[in-house]
């Protein structure tokens, strides 16, 4: 693999080892932090938000020291930050780039659109099968109703 070094990544603060998550929609920064549980870890964490982005308008960026994500862990943010890109940093060098992929199943994160669903009536963690990844469409494991992107609400 070609090792790439991106000078712009170093602007906020240099990261020796860890992960940079870029191209997060600015309004979803804190959702991403919460989905990944970054508010509960002791690692060094820096983030910038309301940065200019040609694609997203405004974007946010997170840098986490000494943290490397498993694919199924990072893919959880696909619902809120589908365009997110990850740079894996080792000794100040970008050693790997990753994009997020919408997973086949989603636990928690999204709310079922059906007001009559058990997940909206009792303390039940939502579970969905992803039936379309392009325009993300979820089928509730409990009420079997469809929640499409337009009606999707992140918990």
């Amino acid at each position, binding site marked *: 693999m070609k090792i790439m070094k991106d000078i712009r990544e170093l602007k906020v603060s240099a990261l020796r080892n860890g992960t940079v998550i870029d191209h997060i929609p600015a309004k979803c920064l804190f959702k991403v932090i919460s989905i990944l549980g970054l508010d509960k870890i002791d690692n060094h964490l820096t983030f910038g938000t309301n940065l200019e982005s040609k694609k997203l308008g405004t974007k946010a960026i997170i840098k986490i020291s000494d943290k490397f994500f498993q694919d199924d862990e990072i893919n959880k943010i696909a619902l809120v930050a589908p365009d997110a890109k990850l740079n894996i940093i080792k000794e100040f060098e970008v050693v790997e780039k990753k994009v997020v992929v919408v997973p086949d199943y989603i636990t928690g994160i999204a709310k079922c659109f*059906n007001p009559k669903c058990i*997940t909206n009536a009792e*303390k039940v963690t939502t579970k969905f099968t992803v039936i379309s990844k392009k325009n993300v469409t979820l089928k509730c*494991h*409990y009420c*079997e*109703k*469809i929640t499409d992107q337009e009606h999707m609400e992140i918990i």
Partner: protein
Amino acid sequence: MKNKSLVSINDFTKENHLRIIELAAEFEKKPVQDLLSGKVIATLFFEPSTRTRLSFESAVNKLGGRIIGFTDASSSSVSKGESLKDTIKTVMNYSDLIIMRHPIEGSARYASEVSNVPIINAGDGANQHPTQTLLDLYSIYKTQGTLDGLSIFLVGDLKYGRTVHSLLMAMSQFNTTFHFVSPVELKIPDEYKIHLDSLGLKYFEHTDFTANIHEADIVYMTRVQRERFSDPIEYEKVKNTYVLRNYMLSETKPGMKILHPLPRVNEINDDVDENTKAYYFTQALNGVFTRQAIITSILGIK
């Protein structure tokens, strides 16, 4: 199927469906047997449904089982605000099997995840009512001698009709040709047509009830309810259009049968009842045998 909950018609495979039909036929020959002695079956009806509850209780009683439970939420701890989880966690200690009906969609699936005894879903809101579908399959099999290659007319409310959707999903495993007869406002949702397309099955949509009815092996009637229409004038326009009357049956196949999940309102005229093609009351009786088959196979007795 032993210890497996029956929550959704999609939980059972084609083989499972055929097995239930086979067992139901056995119970029809010998409905009174001492198979459930020593077993306690809970019937938890969080909303009343007398017809369904009596059918289940009849099925259990004929097999010598005992029943505990409640017939509506107001007579239970639920009225004191107990969660579904707590009710199930309690009742599972007293019973070998829980049959539940609940107005909230997905409640039976959730109950099956917190319970250590199997759950039979007797209706969860507008979502699923799988024992109704299995008794429909048994009725179709019994009257037609097969489930394969039949022509089924689904009539009435095809948009919200839970029984229609489940029957469609189950029958789509058997090379069925579907005819959908409904007012425009209550058309079959696209997701079901996409499903049939993916299987390469033929279907036709009609707004005129009698079109092609001579092709039908089964006419499955449902209620068209006033509250489904946003515009009351639209309801007034169609309310008498999807009513089956005896004279309409003259050109139909001799072995054709009319099914209805009951209760009916006016969608089948009384003059149809005496026609040998009317099958809806026998269909209700088939429900008892089908439920005997489901209960005993889930308990691992059959």
